[in-house]
């Protein structure tokens, strides 16, 4: 039907273009954050994007069954690594998240975000259809989620722990567990939050309290949120202009190239840039959910929707944080925040979703995928 050869039409051009636009925008913002220099951040970030895109394309050629087969072993390996972090990580600083492999710093909790989705999806794919409304469908998933969640929480890394929990719960929801379970536990959670609060670390309590009232400590713990809101608010609709941001260039905005990169962007590009970026991310999520919805395979569709949600949590938690809707939890914004770990994770997710997409198209011929 087309003169264009099949491998070329099959190639996920549109989604790659979308990612490229987001990553390019991120690189431009990092260029500005470094006061108009591609070093040290923009160049690094660009190279990383290319490397990880290649990785995602390689992943997209792998059959979905391979991911299914490796879900449990990978889960076991990462869980072991998390235990290892606790044991040999030693006491460096307040929280312990890294294992030094000599050539790179390994952060196992980062890998757990996509792997928990694969694992839970694998579990429900293996579960016979009739068991879904039984107790047997619940407790193994809760244990699978609970171990990594607890290990990450005691590191302590509240942001990542929350993402692992949310990723797992999302897949449970998608698997078709009775709705009342979610509503019931939601209500229970609301009741026990005050109790849980008392078990948090002091700095975590502080972050939450200051998130509720950032102006109470504008120079201390509330400084990040206050300055971030000032950066976004002073940008207005059109922004102050490229390289014209004062909050970031005069160093009032802390972490302007990592966790608060969105504020750096919003100051210079205004509401316009922010809306553009959020809509771009929404397109990405739309693609992921659509891939999930047209996939027949249980494991594949749950994985696609779950991984999409994982990326969504990155974006949502980070944006809520910089806009003062969530406490400062240290979740980066994919493609915008400078850093390798988060981009690696997000590209893993994207790569797996592309593989699922590719498999679906193979099966059903060339169908409109977006």
């Amino acid at each position, binding site marked *: 039907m087309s003169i264009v050869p099949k491998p070329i039409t099959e190639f996920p051009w549109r989604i790659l273009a979308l990612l490229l636009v987001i990553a390019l925008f991120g690189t431009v913002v990092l260029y500005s954050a470094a006061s108009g220099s591609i070093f040290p951040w923009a160049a690094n970030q660009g190279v990383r994007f290319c490397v990880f895109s290649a990785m995602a394309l390689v992943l997209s050629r792998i059959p979905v069954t391979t991911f299914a087969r490796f879900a449990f072993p990978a889960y076991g390996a990462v869980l072991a690594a998390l235990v290892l972090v606790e044991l040999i990580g030693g006491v460096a600083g307040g929280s312990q998240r890294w294992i030094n492999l000599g050539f790179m710093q390994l952060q196992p909790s980062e890998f757990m975000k996509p792997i928990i989705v694969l694992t839970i999806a694998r579990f429900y794919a293996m579960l016979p*259809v*009739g068991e879904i409304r039984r107790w047997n469908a619940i407790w193994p998933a809760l244990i699978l989620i609970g171990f990594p969640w607890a290990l990450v929480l005691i590191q302590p890394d509240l942001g990542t722990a929350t993402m692992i929990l949310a990723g797992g719960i999302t897949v449970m929801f*998608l*698997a078709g567990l009775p709705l009342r379970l979610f509503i019931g536990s939601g209500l229970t959670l609301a009741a026990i939050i005050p109790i849980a609060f008392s078990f948090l670390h002091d700095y975590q309590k502080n972050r939450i309290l200051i998130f509720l009232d950032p102006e109470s400590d504008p120079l201390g713990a509330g400084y990040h949120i206050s300055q971030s809101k000032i950066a976004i*608010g002073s940008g207005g609709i059109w922004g102050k202009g490229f390289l014209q941001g*004062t*909050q970031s260039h005069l160093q009032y905005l802390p972490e302007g190239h990592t966790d608060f990169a969105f504020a750096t962007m919003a100051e210079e590009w205004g509401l316009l840039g922010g809306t553009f970026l959020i809509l771009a991310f929404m397109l990405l999520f739309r693609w992921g959910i659509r891939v999930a*919805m047209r996939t027949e395979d249980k494991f594949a569709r749950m994985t696609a929707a779950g991984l999409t949600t994982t990326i969504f949590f990155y974006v949502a938690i980070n944006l809520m944080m910089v806009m003062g809707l969530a406490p400062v939890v240290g979740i980066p914004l994919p493609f915008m925040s400078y850093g390798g770990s988060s981009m690696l994770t997000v590209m893993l997710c994207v790569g797996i979703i592309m593989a699922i997409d590719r498999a679906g198209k193979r099966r059903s011929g060339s169908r409109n995928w977006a």
Partner: protein
Amino acid sequence: MKFLTPKRKIVTEAAQSFTFSRRAMVVGGLQGAIGAVLIGRMAWISVVQNEKYSLLSESNRVNMTLIPPRRGWILDRNGKPLANNRTDFRVDLIPQRVVDAEATITHLAQLLKLEPDEVDRIRDDLDKSAGFRPVQVADKLTYDQYAAISVRLPDLPGVAPSQGFSRNYPAGATVGHLLGYVGAATAEEFKARKDPLLITPGFKIGKDGLEKAFDRHLTGKPGAKRVEVTARGKIMQELTTRQDTPGRSIKLTIDAGLQEYAGRRLATQSGSVVVIDCQNGDVLALASMPSFDPNSFSDGISHLEYEMLSKDDHVPLRNKTLQGLYPPGSTVKPMVALALLEAGVGPQETVNCPGAIRVGNTLFHCHKKRGHGPLNMRGAIAQSCDIYFYQMAQRIGMDRIASMAHRVGMGQKFDLPFPSQSYGTVPDPAWKERKYNQKWQVYDTVNATIGQGYMLINPLQMAVMAARLATGKQLMPNFIHGAPRKEPAPVGSTEEHLVVIRDAMNAVVNGGGTGGAARSSIPGVMIAGKTGTAQVRRITMAERAGGVRGNAGLPFKLRDHALFQGFAPFDNPRYAIACIIEHGGHTIRNEDAPMIASDTLSYLFDPAKALEKLETLEKGWGGTPAERQARQMAAFRLAKAIEKGEVPPPAENAAENATAANSAAPAPAPPAPPAPSADDEDVPPPPGANGGATP
């Protein structure tokens, strides 16, 4: 299986797939909803609250610094500036903007002709600097130097020329004690006033004299400079500048020319001259010499210069006109004579002066050993006969003399805009009883009538006394031009009595009396006055027997004070004057009190002629006070250098030397007057008493 579990809700692959699709749509919908919420939230912050956050962003970015206001001028009675502001050009280095530090410093050193030790200092400061804090290269540059740097700025990155203002006193040392000086506020002053202006670099407040008394009046409103700063305080760029509002000026009664003339005319002596307008009490000149140069005090005086000033036996750091207290000596005789007239002593009554009389157990001598023979009042004043006054004073008693002394201003504390003033003593029986718990003796009266013993006066009071004797009115000294003042109360003497006194004082100068040296050089203007000599040591019997040694042979500190008070013209007094030369000893005629007073008065009638005479005289003294002080400074510096070279490092810095020397030397500390009696404590005038007076 489906059929075996009919109670359970039937779950098929198809149903599960349907559930998944529905739930995936829910998840997708939730994601979309949260995305919309985020956009809404961002719009709320950046559109609705934009103004608030823009303001916060601006207040982050912009830092205000105060610009010190220019100080109001101090003008003389004719509008001539006594203190104004000099444009001060300076050059700083902003270390982090400097590209090649060594080349820049070398270039600057060449342009500004910097000394090698200055260049080393700049290098040192540059090494230690924090990056954005400026390092001073040089200040007090000429406009040409400033311009030379400014045009080369493109080649000199990091060099920042700027201009400010510093206080300038055109007359230099001659107004030092009158105006005081300015300096940076101390920590105590900041604590007391809590004004951020006080800690603004470059802002100075009045530290002494009129600068201190009228400080608030002279201080203007600060300007402000807005600069862009980073979170760490580094200045990125200058934004806008609001100019300062200069302080209001004040106009003094001082005649700038006369003030400077009086200061110069005091020659090499340690002395003071006060001139008062007999019409209203305006102070026309208040000179105390030698003095510090207020210009160098206001710039921050060097340790070396301060050490030199504090070691000088001519006490340049003390304002002698207000803080110097001296026995008035014979200058009180016209006042005593007025008291005698009031008590009924006839002007023609005579007393025979045999050269000495016995009072109690002590023999009191006249200054003329052989005696004056019979003298009436006019002769006694003209010849300054002590015996006449010994005899007459015993007749009327001390209380009446003290009453007259108070009325002519002795012992009186005036309401003056100066931080401290010593107001002397007029002793009487009640005072002695109170003070020493001793009975008044006849020899106390005898001592007091010739201005010795407990009696003390400051130069301003002596000028006031001259003015009151001349006019018969209790004139009050005043420094503010056009200030409202009350009609002066009368002294209480009849015109007839005053004529007798004025005539006698005329005879002192023009009638063959002791003050011939004060004879006026201006035709038609006759000066009347009274000389005085105040002993500062007791003359022992042995010394008297061996012949009193001449003052010239005595150490400086033991020589007599020389005094003169008077007015001109004698028949219609217009100006009154007082001149006191510390330890003058009447040794040099043209540097003695009468001739200094006479020349100073002549300036008021013929300035050109007076200046001509002064310039001739100054050649003999080694130039103007500024030239002499510069030479003294050079000599002192040399002496210090030699001392340091000979003695292996006893003390490295001059500050230590200075303190050591001060504690070792018995010389009085600068502000403390010699205090033989406790009645003359320094009592500062109430703050701002005259502060709001006419500008």
